């Protein structure tokens, strides 16, 4: 219990911000995906840190759920990437802009 909780918070915030930056700035859809995973990871880290901080287990259970959802999301997301690539021959998110109003 030597490491102050704030340090974990700081680390988590930095990782999260990197994830955000990746989503906002990178154009490759797989990188974008990984950035999202990075954000999940940052959140998970904070969960576990707080669980430890509060001497509880619920945070860990939560992480478990987050991971499951992330796994599901990756499965579907990568399938979407495949579908996108198949129809547009690209992995660039900017090329998929049919939602344009």
């Amino acid at each position: 219990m030597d490491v102050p909780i704030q340090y974990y918070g700081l680390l988590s915030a930095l990782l999260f911000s990197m994830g955000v930056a990746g989503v906002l700035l990178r154009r490759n859809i797989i990188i974008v995906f990984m950035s999202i995973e990075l954000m999940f990871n940052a959140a998970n880290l904070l969960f576990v840190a707080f669980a430890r901080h509060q001497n509880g287990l619920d945070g860990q259970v939560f992480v478990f759920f987050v991971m499951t959802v992330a796994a599901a999301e990756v499965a579907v997301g990568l399938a979407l990437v495949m579908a996108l690539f198949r129809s547009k021959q690209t992995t660039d998110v900017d090329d998929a802009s049919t939602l344009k109003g």
Partner: protein
Amino acid sequence: MSLLLFGILAVIALITAALMVTARNLVHAVLMMVANFGTVAIMYITLSAPFVAVVQVAVYAGAIMVLFLFVVMLLGEQQLSFDEPFAGQRMAAGVLGLLLAIMLLVTLFTASPAVLQTGLTAEQIGRENAQRVGELLYTQYLLPFEATSILLLIAMVGAVVLAKRRLL
């Protein structure tokens, strides 16, 4: 010791994350991500959460990484560019990111999170960790657990349908 360990791990995590986000090669990015996740898994162990750490390695470093690599290989090697087609995207991202970071940090350092009285010590949490988490999962969190299983099933079906060459 633990502070030192935390420092080393934190630095590694940050560096791998930064490399992942800025990678020009997709395979490198995936490897950086795995490294990052591995680092975080070690951090979980220091936080007396061995079960989560194992799951992290199994799911992320195992399954998800393989999945990513698989897709990357399937789509083929490609060099990624850093051109920014949108005017102001970087600027806006920078400003907003800065704002977010400031607010998070201020929150982080001004707030003093309460410590709940769970009746457990740090050691207790770390020992028989998997057993305790399992107990919680199958008692208090049974319903979300079952819901998650259904979610996974749906995701599986969805992935199959989406990845099929010809949609139904």
